[in-house]
């Protein structure tokens, strides 16, 4: 009630309180609005108000004078400008203004909400609404084609990273049909405030039901703040959602990386510290789908760094890190949210980072995340690394590959041999190889095929290879790929170009010392021979053995899987030059009849980068009833790359283990049986 000299006014219609820093917390600023249709010239005497059931009497001070509308407006505006104005004050100002207040905001995303049967919008606007949840009668939504009108509800919520005075706004337009076309703006009016929310260049039209999970968090926050009612579609039950931090100090959780593996699932790396009994389940929400994370089916990783950072909380879980494979998820633009159900059934939510890596970098990151040993190896690969890598591989193989073929000189008309050399990184090795080949006789029956599996070096190759032909005058085919595909695939691409009766797979860092190497080795591959694959003796530069045959050995440290061992590696070569059969030979130099190579479809391209594809080929050769052999009278130098050690790069070791795992799945039983029989 406001009391004037000769009149008193009805109860105040609008009120707003605001912080007054000059009062130094001893008091609070207020604005009261008493509607009165006539003008008022009486002196203001006092106001009596009841706030929270307590009566206050307010008296004017010396400076109080009636002011004009413009003065009031100006004063109120300056108050609003100097504070982060609460909605009530803005609403009051809007009410006082002779014209409706026009407020402009923006829509970030919209999507159809199937349960509510309406369109859900998410954006932001200046914070002027009188309450955080308001029903509206007439909302007009403009699309490219036409306008629709409907009723709905608007809810504001606190959102970080907005301009000063901004607030997040979520809006549901009821009974609106599913529209995907170009959204332009929507308009509504609330208590003399006209709100227009417009699209921007980055406004997203999301798939159906893709917006709820994103909004769930924020609406949850606003529940915590006050009694504002909620958009019914966001909550399908009475579950309380809150930020993950609310579960501390009983539960701490963090995601380091999410790797999307094609369309078939995601691999998640992170860590979790939780007091026993403080949590029930951890799930991953993607749109409307919820996927339970099963840590028992994942890989546990030691995380001393995490333990150290949380040492004051009394956790005793050194293997708190995890790598988990979640099949079936197709992450979309809406993103992934981790939901941890606490003991009291409240859900702690955490935005998972968006997956960003692809192809080889994704595989590398995946394989850098854990270091399984001994009996952990097989389960790690069976449950996580294997399926995730397979999904990544399938995705990659689906990418188109562009192949460019360039011929230098002419292909021999009578082509007895095709030498296939994949090239990566060291293009100058081709110079050395070709210089050597040019000193051999009999090149007119040889088709040399170089496969450049190194897209960044194509420009360098374009400069170097013409000079190689001009200098050495040995005709060759150059196949260039626009993607790095690895040894197996590159060799197979070379095989498809081959015309010779006999194929020689050759590494770029192998240099024949016996001039007539092709003919000498091919003698063993005559039509009647039972030899399916033959190779030479390979030595290091110092003349010691690099390869003269492969046998298999099981390594306990790596899950008891079978690994290739080079017989006599590092020793001086024996004087015995007789042909020797072996379980397998290296593809660093391997000759076979083209008919057999084609029958076997070359190397199995599942073997990534390199390793085991040659032993796999040799075992398949033997499955066909042939043998594999080494002829030590033919010698070559193999400058094998020395840095293959585990210490330097974990992912390389794990890649080898991945190939070993694949290999063992195919051949493990057979090799073990052979061992038993021997």
């Amino acid at each position: 009630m406001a009391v004037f000299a000769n009149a008193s006014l009805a109860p105040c219609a609008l009120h707003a309180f605001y912080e007054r820093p000059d009062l130094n917390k001893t008091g609070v600023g207020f604005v009261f609005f008493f509607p009165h249709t006539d003008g008022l010239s009486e002196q203001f005497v006092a106001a009596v108000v009841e706030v929270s059931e307590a009566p206050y009497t307010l008296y004017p001070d010396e400076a109080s004078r009636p002011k004009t509308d413009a003065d009031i407006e100006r004063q109120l505006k300056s108050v609003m400008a100097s504070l982060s104005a609460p909605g009530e004050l803005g609403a009051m100002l809007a009410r006082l203004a002779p014209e409706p207040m026009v407020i402009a905001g923006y829509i970030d995303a919209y999507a159809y909400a199937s349960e509510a049967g309406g369109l859900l919008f998410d954006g932001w606007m200046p914070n002027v609404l009188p309450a955080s949840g308001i029903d509206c009668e007439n909302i007009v939504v403009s699309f490219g084609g036409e306008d629709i009108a409907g009723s709905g509800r608007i809810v504001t919520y606190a959102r970080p990273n907005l301009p000063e005075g901004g607030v997040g706004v979520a809006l549901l337009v009821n009974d609106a049909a599913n529209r995907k076309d170009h959204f332009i703006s929507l308009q509504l009016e609330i208590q003399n405030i006209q709100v227009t929310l417009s699209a921007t260049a980055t406004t997203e039209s999301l798939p159906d039901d893709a917006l709820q999970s994103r909004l769930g968090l924020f609406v949850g926050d606003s529940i915590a703040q006050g009694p504002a009612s909620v958009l019914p579609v966001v909550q399908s039950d009475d579950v309380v959602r809150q930020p993950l931090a609310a579960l501390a100090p009983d539960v701490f959780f963090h995601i380091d990386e999410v790797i999307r593996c094609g369309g078939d699932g995601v691999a998640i790396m992170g860590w979790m510290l939780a007091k026993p009994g403080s949590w029930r389940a951890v799930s991953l929400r993607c749109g409307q789908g919820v996927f339970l994370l099963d840590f028992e089916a994942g890989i546990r990783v030691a995380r001393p760094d995490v333990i150290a950072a949380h040492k004051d909380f009394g956790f005793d879980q050194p293997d708190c890190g995890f790598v988990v494979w979640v099949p079936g998820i197709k992450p979309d633009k809406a993103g992934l949210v981790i939901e941890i159900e606490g003991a009291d059934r409240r859900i702690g939510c955490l935005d998972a980072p968006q997956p960003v890596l692809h192809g080889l970098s994704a595989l590398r990151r995946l394989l850098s995340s854990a270091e399984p040993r001994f009996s952990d190896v097989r389960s790690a690969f069976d449950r996580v690394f294997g399926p995730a890598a397979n999904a990544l591989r399938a995705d990659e193989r689906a990418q188109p590959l562009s192949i460019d073929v360039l011929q230098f000189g002419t292909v021999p008309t009578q082509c007895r041999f095709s030498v296939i050399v994949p090239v990566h990184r060291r293009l100058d090795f081709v110079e050395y190889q070709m210089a050597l080949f040019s000193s051999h006789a009999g090149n007119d029956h040889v088709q040399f095929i170089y496969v450049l599996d190194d897209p960044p070096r194509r420009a360098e190759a374009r400069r170097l290879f013409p000079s190689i032909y001009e200098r050495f005058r040995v005709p060759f085919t150059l196949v260039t790929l626009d993607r790095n595909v690895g040894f197996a695939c590159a060799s197979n691409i070379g095989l498809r170009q081959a015309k010779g009766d006999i194929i020689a797979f050759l590494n770029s860092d192998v240099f024949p010392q016996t001039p007539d190497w092709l003919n000498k080795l091919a003698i063993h591959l005559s039509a009647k021979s039972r030899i399916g694959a033959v190779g030479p003796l390979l030595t290091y530069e110092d003349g010691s053995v690099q390869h003269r045959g492969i046998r298999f050995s099981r390594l306990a440290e790596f899950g008891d899987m079978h690994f290739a061992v080079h017989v006599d590696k590092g020793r001086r070569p024996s004087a015995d030059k007789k042909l020797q059969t072996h379980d397998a030979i290296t593809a660093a130099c391997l000759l076979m009849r083209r008919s057999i190579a084609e029958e076997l479809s070359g190397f199995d391209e599942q073997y990534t980068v390199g390793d085991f594809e040659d032993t796999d080929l040799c075992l398949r050769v033997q499955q066909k009833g042939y043998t594999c052999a080494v002829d030590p009278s033919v010698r070559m130098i193999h400058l094998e790359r020395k840095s293959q050690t585990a210490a330097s790069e974990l992912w390389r070791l794990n890649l080898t283990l991945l190939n070993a795992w694949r290999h063992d799945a195919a051949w493990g039983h057979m090799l073990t049986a052979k061992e038993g029989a021997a």
Partner: protein
Amino acid sequence: MTRRTKNDRAAGTLPSHMVPPLRVAIVAHSHPSYSLGGGEIAAFRLFRALQDCADIDTWFLGCDRSGAADHLGAVITQPFSDAEFIYRTGPFDWFKFANTDLQFPQEIETLFADRAPDVVHFHHYINFGVEVFAHLRRVRPACRIIVTLHEYLAICHNSGQMSTTDHRLPCRRSSPERCRACFPQYETTDFFLRKLYIQRYFDLVDLFIAPSRFLAERYVEWGIPDEKVVVLENLLPPIPVTNPLPPQATGPLRFGYFGQISTLKGIDVLLDAAALLQSQGITDIVFDIHGDYRAQTDEARARFLARLDKAGPNIRFRGRYDPDDVDRLMQGVHAVVVPSIWWENSPVVIQEAMRNKRPVICSNIGGMAEKVRDGIDGFHFEAGDAMALADLLRGFSKDRSRLARQAERMQRQRATSVSVDDFLSLYRGSC
């Protein structure tokens, strides 16, 4: 190591007036019009001498590295005379001496096919690339390919010096591990491949000429078959009339330094020795330094000039000299000092000193020790040891007769010199 001796020309079945002229090409990596290094000067001198031979049809192929001349497309041109060709060089791989110039193989083959040499004597393979031997073989399979080795480039990636990159210590032998220690940016396998590449083309060469036994031994150790290497000095200008200059009983003893002003050539050793003698109060020894410092780095040049500034009166810097004046200048000194700290091969300055009958005082290593017999052609001192040099020279000052006897001995020696006939017998393969 067998030393080939001069032989008569092999007797043919035709009377001599009907024997066709021997067609000889001389190939160098530069041309005296562009630079005055020992290799190209020796090659060109040989070419001129062959031009004077009646039964020889000869021409010269050099290189222009400057990139200045641009005849738009023609890589082999003739800016000087009918008998001289210049290859305008392109991109070159200095690690394994590979020539990546796309036009070169065709053009050089055409040149060799047209000129049809019987013998091609290379004084270098740099700028052309080692592949040039294969290009030549392709068009002239029966041609005799001869290569004079002027330094150790095929063996040593450190500018062919066979000295280490860190402290410039003489290195006796290459290996992938030792080479990698000098050049850690390369792998041992890179040095293995480098040698593989060079030797693949060296295999096509019929004969290697080494100007010193020391160099010959290094290459045989490296892998060139012993029977393919012969020791023969480079051709020199005609021997001048020399005036003896015996040291007097009193008066200054003049020692001359001739050549590039560089650390490798021992200029610091000389300056240190001079400073030592100065501090010991020896006033009758003076050093005449004749040389060029323009090819040195800014830092080296500045260091030398600073030392000159502080040097005593026993050092006189006489600046650079024209090669034509060397005889006159050498005859103005009592002896010539060659204090190089690397092996050297067959330094031109030693040959010039001996032709002028001046004793040579040199380091006791490599090609120097080979060409200068201690007590016969001159005197040795411990390589790099300034004090040893100072002691030796102080001895000469005290006992003038020592140097006088040496000078007398050299006057009596008959000068031996390589002649063009020595080369012709190698070309004809008659030894």
